[in-house]
Structures are given as C-alpha cells and as structure tokens.
C-alpha cells in the first residue's frame, strides 16, 4: 500500500467519511415526498384490470347469473374450481349451480375462468385482503363467492368492462339465457325482447 493511500484512509477514518457518505442519501431523501405509503391506513389505487379474488355476480333483478355450465372448471389450469349443478327445485327447468367451490390457495389468478364464463357470472375484483390463520377458510364456497361479488359488484363490472367482456347493461341482458318453460306449468313470463 502506498503512502498516499494510507494517508487517505487515516484521514477518512478521522473525519467519519463513511457516515457522512451514508447520511448523504438520508438527508437527500428528507427533502423528497415519501415513496411508500402507510399500507393498512392508506390504500393504493388499483387498476380496473387487476386480477384479485373471484366473485360471483347476480343480475340486477337479483337472479343468480351462474347457470352451472362447468366451463370455468374446464378452463381452470390449476383445477381449483368445482361446480355441482342441479335443476332449481323452485323453478323447474332452470339449471343453476347448487354448489360452487374455488380453492383460492390453488388459484393462479390467470382469469381464464372469467373469460370462459358465457354469462359473465364470474368476475375478478380488487379484493386481495383475505389472509387468515385458518387455511381451510380459503376454500371459497358459493355463499362466500356471492358475498364477494355483492360487496365488490362495481369492481367486478369494471373488470368485465376493462376486459371487453361486458360493455353495458343492455348488452348484459342479451347475454342472459332465458330457459324455456314447461308444457305442463309455466314458471316464468317470456322475456320482453322475445315476446
């Protein structure tokens, strides 16, 4: 080691150069606005296309959109959806999902299920806070999914809009499938646009 280098090192040690150098960054940042935000107290703005927790949607008249077609189950790459469908006992000839499960721990948030859904019953919301102590509660059942859908209805609709799946209300009505009635007993009036 040369004399000059040694002198420099001793001088830097005496003057606490490293501390000054380090503090320089700190002091510079004292003048900045903070880059982070205080997460639980402050919430981040999330884009409409965000893929968060899945929810099931209803039509405006409160009917379940889902017709239990199992296409989401077929589309799911991680096999986390299970649909059991049945005939609605209250309204004969109406198919619906009697049970609907999404194992959200397995979900990879690809959004294929939403794309596969022919009636736009599934949507992804901006909800991502569902951490829990009990892993079992992460198997979302039908009730939970409808709860999510209800609470985050706007998010869901925005998601569908942003993904070019459902543009407006009128269009969503056209998407809707009207079941035929039974010859024996009519269970619903024919839809307006058909009568």
């Amino acid at each position, binding site marked *: 080691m040369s004399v000059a280098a040694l002198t420099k090192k001793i001088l830097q040690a005496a003057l606490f150069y490293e501390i000054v150098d380090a503090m320089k960054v700190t002091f510079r940042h004292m003048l900045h606005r903070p880059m982070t935000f205080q997460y639980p107290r402050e919430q981040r703005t999330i884009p409409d296309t965000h893929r968060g927790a899945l929810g099931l949607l209803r039509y405006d008249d409160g009917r379940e959109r889902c017709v239990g077609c199992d296409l989401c189950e077929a589309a799911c790459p991680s096999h986390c959806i299970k649909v059991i469908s049945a005939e609605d006992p209250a309204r004969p*000839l109406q198919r619906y999902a009697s049970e609907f499960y999404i194992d959200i721990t397995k979900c990879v948030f690809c959004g294929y299920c939403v794309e596969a859904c022919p009636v736009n019953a599934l949507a992804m919301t901006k909800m991502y806070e569902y951490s829990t102590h009990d892993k079992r509660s992460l198997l979302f059942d039908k009730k939970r999914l409808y709860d999510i859908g209800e609470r985050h209805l706007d998010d869901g609709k925005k998601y569908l809009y942003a993904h070019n799946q459902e543009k407006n209300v009128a269009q969503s009505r056209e998407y809707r499938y009207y079941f035929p009635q039974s010859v024996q007993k009519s269970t619903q009036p024919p839809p307006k646009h058909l009568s």
Partner: protein
Amino acid sequence: MGLKPATNPDVEGATIELSIDGKSVTARDGVSLYDVIAMTGKIIPAMCYHYTFDPFGSCGMCLVMQEGKKAPVRSCTAKAAAGMVIRTEGEDLFLARKKAVEKHLSVHPLDCPVCDADGHCELQDMAFQHGVTNLANAKQKFIPEDTRSLVLDFNMNRCIACAECINVCKDVLMIDALQFMKKGGFNQVVAKGDLALDCEFCGDCLAVCPVGAITNKFSKYLYKPWQMKKTTTTCNYCGDGCQLYLETKDEEVVRVTSPLSWKNKWGDRSETAKGHGGLCVRGRFGFEYLDSKSRLTQPLVREGGRLVQKPWLETMHLLVDQLTEIKEKSGADAIGGLVTARCTNEELYLFQKLMRTGFGTNQLDSSARYGHMNFVLASKRATGLGRMPNDWEDLTKAKAIMLFGSNITETNPLTAVRIKEAIRVYKAQVMTFDSAITNIAKLASHPFLIKPGTEGAVIDGLVKTTIEQDLVDEEVVEKHPRAFDALKSAVANLSLEHLAAQTGVPIEAFREVAAIFAESPRSIILCAEGIVRRTNGYQNVLKLMDLAWITGKLGRAGCGVNTVTEEPNEQGAVDMGAAPEFLPGQARFDDPAVRDRFAKAWETSLPPVGSGAHLIEILKRCKSGRIKALYILGENPLATLPASMEVRAALERLELLVVQDPFLTETGKLAHFVLPACTYAEKDGTFTNLEGRVLRVRQAMDPLGESLPDWHIMTALANAMGCRWEYQSANDIQAEIMKLLPGYYNLGQPRKVVPVPDQYLSNDYAAEVKARYQQGPPSGENPRPFSLLMGQLLVHSGKLSTQAPGLMKIAPNTGKLRMNIGDMERLGLQDGVKVRLTSDRGSLQLAVQADQSIAPGTCFFPEHFNEPPVKDLMPVSVDAATGVPSFKQTWVSVEQA
C-alpha cells in the same frame, strides 16, 4: 328413399364404378352415394345421417359436387350410379356447408352452457369446424319444453329437425313413437299425437340426437360429458349382453350411454346384423340401484333375533367357526349353496370350486335352473351342444323364424330388434305361437294366439303335418331310418283335429307354418319362457329338435333351435359348472376322466357321484334337516318360489343361513349372516351372453361402503376353511379358467360349433320318442275358466330392477290383475274393481285392470312383484328329467268380490 342396403344375402347388387376425387371406386348399385364415399375413408360432415337407417337428407351438410350439375348435391340421398364423377372437397363446398351450419344455428338457441349435450354436440362441432362466428339474422324460438315423459325431456328450441330420432324409432326399432308436428311456426318432434311419450322407453332417440333437443331426465343439468368417467361394460339385466358405457362421477352413477350414438354414424349397414348398439329401458334407465341408499354396506349378523352390523373380521370369524362346526359334526353333505346367474363367470367358477373343494359338497345350483336348464340339458342330449347354435347375425338373416311362447320384445328387447330387422330388411316370415298378444306378434307375418299351456301340442301338430305333407329332408332322415320310423309311429296316433281343437290353431295353419319352416333356406326356432319355464319344458325342447332334425335344419348353417335367457349369465352359470350335473365346460360330473382332470387341477378329491342336488332337492333337504347350512349368493328363493314350496319353513329350519347380496332381500331377512356384495359396476369379470359370447365387465367405481366383490368374499371364506387360494384379482381366476377350459374366452366371438344329433339319433332316440308324443287330455270344460300367467315386464328383470327407482316410476307395482277387456265386460268389471282370484292353491283379493296385450280367457300378473302374493296361487310341477320347477301358469276363477 328406397335406398335399401345392398346386404341382402340372397340378392347381390351389381357392381358399378365411379370416380371420387379423381380416384376410381367400385361399389354396389343402389347404395347411397354417401356410403360409397364413407367406404373410401373420407368423412363428409352430415348431421342427419346414421348408418342404421335409410338416409333422410334434411341437414344439407353432406354436399358434394357432381360433374354435370351446377349446384352441389346431397350425397346421402343420391344413389351411386355408374360413371359418376364426384368431388368432395373444395372451397366452394366448404362455404356451402358453412352456410348450412349457419342456417341451423340461426334458429338454434346459443344455450350451450346450460345444455346437457355441450361438448357432445354435432352442431357445436360443425360450427367450430366451419368457423361460424357471426350470424346475420338469428331468431329465438322460445318453445315450451315437453317434460311430460317419465324419462326424456324434449327441448324443441334446440332441435335441428334431422329426424334421426324418428328414423331410428321407426326403422330400426319399429316402435314408431315419434313424429314431426308443425307447431308455433317450427317443425317439432313430438310423441305420437302430441301426447306424453308412451313407448318402450329404450332411449335410442336420445342416443342418436346430435344436439341437446332430447335430454335424459335422470342426468339433466348434473354434469357435463367431460366431467364423467366412462367405463365400457356389459349390462346385467338380461341375457342379450349389450355393451354399455357407465358414466360415473366419483361414487355416483350419473347415466348410461350406448355404443349407438350420433358419434358412431359411419358404418356398414350389414354390420347391424350383429346388433345395432342400442339399449333397452332397463339398460339405459335402470342404473339407479347401483348407488342406491338401500345397498348393504356392512356385514350383518343375527344376534338375539335381530340383524346387527358387525365388522368384516368378526363376522368372518363367527361364520367360519359355525361352518367348520357343522362340517365336522354333520359332514360335508350338510352344506348346500345357491348362486345367481347375475354373477360373473369368474365368480360362478369360484362358487362351484368353493362348494366342491372348500366345503366338499355337490349340493349347489344356480338360477339357470328356473328355465334355461331345460334347454341346455335337452339340447345337450340331442345335439351335444349346451347352448344356442345361432347368434344374432343368423337370427337377423333368417328367412323363417318360429317363436314359441316368447314375449321377446319384453324379455330380451335387443334380440327382438334382431328379429325386427329380419322382418324389415331381410323380409323374414315370422310365426309366433303365444297365449298373449305380444308386440312381436303384431309385426309377425303369421301370428297365432294359442290356448294357454298348449305350446307342446302346437309342436306335436307341426311335427305331424311336416311328416304328413312330406316336407321331410330325405337326405338327413335316411341316415337314421330307425329313429325316423320311431318318430313316424309316435306321431301316427296323434289326431290333428284334436290338436287343432286343443290349441286353437287351425289345421291349415299347421300345414302352412310347417311348409314355410321346412322350405326356407334359413329357418330358426326360438323357444322362450312359454316352453322352458312351463311343464314338460325338457320334452318340448326335444320335440323342437325333432322338428328341426326332420326338416334338415339341425346342423345347417343359419338354422337351429334357440332360446333366450332372462339373467345375464345363465349360460355362463352352466358353462362354469354351477350345477350339480356339470363340471366347468359342461363336462358331466359323473365322467371319471373329467373328474380326474379337475381333481388333479384343484389338488383335491371331488364329492362322490350321486351326492349332488339341484335347487328343488336342496330345498327339500333343507326342510328334512339333511342340509344344515345354506350359502345363498344373490339368490332369493323365498321371493321367487310359490309358498307351496314351503321355502320359508325350509330356510327357518337351517342352523346356518348365509346370504351374500347387494341388497337385504326377503331371504336375507331370514339369514344368520348377511354379507354385503358388490354390484357388477364395482368388479371386473366376464358374462357369457345367450349367444355364447364372453363379454367383459369392467369396474366403474369403488365398492360402496364396506361391500366386497363376491370372488373376494369367497376367496377369504375358502382360505379360512383351509384351502390355499391365492387369487389377488378376477384376472387370476380368469387365468385358471383359461388353463382348464382353453378357448372359452372367445373375445366376443362365439366359437361356431355345429350341433351333431347323430350320436343321440342312432342310440337312445327310438326308445325315447314314443313317450314324447302323447295325445293330450281332451280339453273339457275346466271348472276354473281363466288361465293365470305370470311373466316378465319390459321394464323389469327379476327382483333386481325393483331396486331402481327410475324403473319403478315407469312401471310401478299396480297390484292389479291384468285382464282382457272383453272378459272384463263379460264379467261386468271396471278398472280397479276388486275381484277374488281362486286357484287350487288358495285365493286372494285384488283389483283388476284392462290390458290390451292379454288374450281372452287369460289374466296376467308380473312376476317381479309379490304384493299381493299372486305367485302363491301357483302350483309347482318339477320336471322329472331336469328338476326345473315350473310355476308360471295355472287355472283360476275370477269373481267379483
């Protein structure tokens, strides 16, 4: 369309040559152009085409360009002609086909998500194939759904009017229950007369529907086709042995589908002679017992008069202790066994091995004893062949078919379809002799309604007229002049007038039928429950053999005497030796050489000759206390045999009654041990159907609860009794059978064995034949005017089908006696009026109902139901030669109660 298949064996179509896509192709004249193109391996889309019936030509997809024509032509309805130049591919054809798809789609609801056919839909496939993404003017129909039928829903919004359902119903099945009707501006498929569907419910319309217009009520909305596991297996309702696909999801049987489907639409029309691949109502809709709630899931042991659930291990310990004790105390002859013919071949083999080597007794029998044994023993005696000589193909291509006492459309619906095809395509003459107005009689060219119980006399008359009219095949008869002389003298003292009066068949009819039968190149006799389940069944089958022999039909290709079986594996039960007189392979039990062979193979000594007992004898020995322990596998004698057999007393006297069954049967309720067995859906194995084809049964799901396959239970029992059996699966048993009976596993193709009557004719025949032809007693005035018959319904099979709720919904137990309308009017009875039914055995009260199929002077009650216990009115007569109990017919009086 007039496009008959060029498959009639009598008429060979001329060979023509035409050019398809530049290649020269030879074909038969008069065949549909579509068939010719399909034969070259090219597939042109077609939605209304199916090879089982004539082309209909409504979908407009099978377009091809024919040189010299401006527009594309529909290849299915065009006849192939010599010199045609055909182009099947090209942009213009693709666009024309796409237009046809768009036309169908524009009036088709886009409800794939809720449609059951989603993923199994031809219109969907075609839309994908042709890239249909936009529809110019779509129109929704909003037709109400027809849910009135018990098994099928008709959603005519989805119908594409391909008429496959109508065609298969009319042409293939000859039921004709569907029609087109213009309603609401659209052509719709409705049941005849737009009423609720009331047909045989075979569901073949459902199978061929290329869209979701006809849906299965049992699986509606439940699952999509891709979610279910599909297992190819064999139906276990009747002896037809139809292949079916059992579609399951986990532990639940969702539906049954058939090889007949719009997906398998390309085939050779002549292939349908081996079966068209469809199912009947039992096969398609009778699956619900498989995962029924009433299945046994735990072993039951009698404790203090009640059956209580016990674990397997404890049950087996208790059972083996008791069995060993009885065997040590009273010897092997104190044990007997009965087995049902609904078991697989492997299990039947294992059962007789267990009885003969494990327990050391020959007191065993199967449910083939209820009728099929009459045929087997008679046929074996006369021709050395213990099964049907003909298969379905022979039946289809026959020119004359004689049906004796057979309501075949109800007992064996798919064999009946073969006869229908014989009538329709091959123009066969069908002669039926039955004491009921059967469905097949309505299609037959020579239907005869005979007086009940006179089937034997009809055969007498036919044999006599055959000899009288000199319709005898001289060549065949000259080989055995002594036998023929004996037969001639035996029938000489029969009087035709007497037989005509006795049977109700005019003498001219005897002559005509005998002439048709003798002069046809391929004639088949089919005798069923009216012969083999009635008194003198053995003798009557032998008489039929005589008739076939003197007309030269015995041993000739495409001719023979046949029967049908009620349970799926009755033939297998006989072949596997589950009868006291047979060892496996139908070898005689008392044949020393065979006994040696099996004793060596099983490394044990067989029970002595003469110690065996058949069903009736076993029950007798139970009652006398000689048999102390009875092992009943799936059989239910208590609910089957009339009370006069005193089955209950016999079973109650037993020290040990073990019943192994999937359900708690009437017999099971008396048992000391009830072992839960699996159904055919939960095990591997094989069935032998009535043709002698060995068909695979495959496991579709895991055993329900703690139930186990029968072979598993028997292996455990045998090992506990000191045998050393090392079967790990049904395959191991199969390997053993293959070693002992080489060639038995014929992979669906029965070995063609020619029946040879020479042995019998040159030895015992002359001595026996005299006793066979006896003038029946004069039909005087009977004190009881009505003949009570018990038989099978289309929808049911044995007692098993009563466990399937779907079938019970279609045909519930009405508890009513079915009578002819004329008789009811004569007696002044209305539907539902209570009558008193009296036979020599007792009397009971029940309501009556009118039934079109019942002949005057007879009344009918289905054998599947014991409520009210009509079977107890029946006397039982046991055949001296075969031990077959017959209890399906008696004389009764009917009075208003």
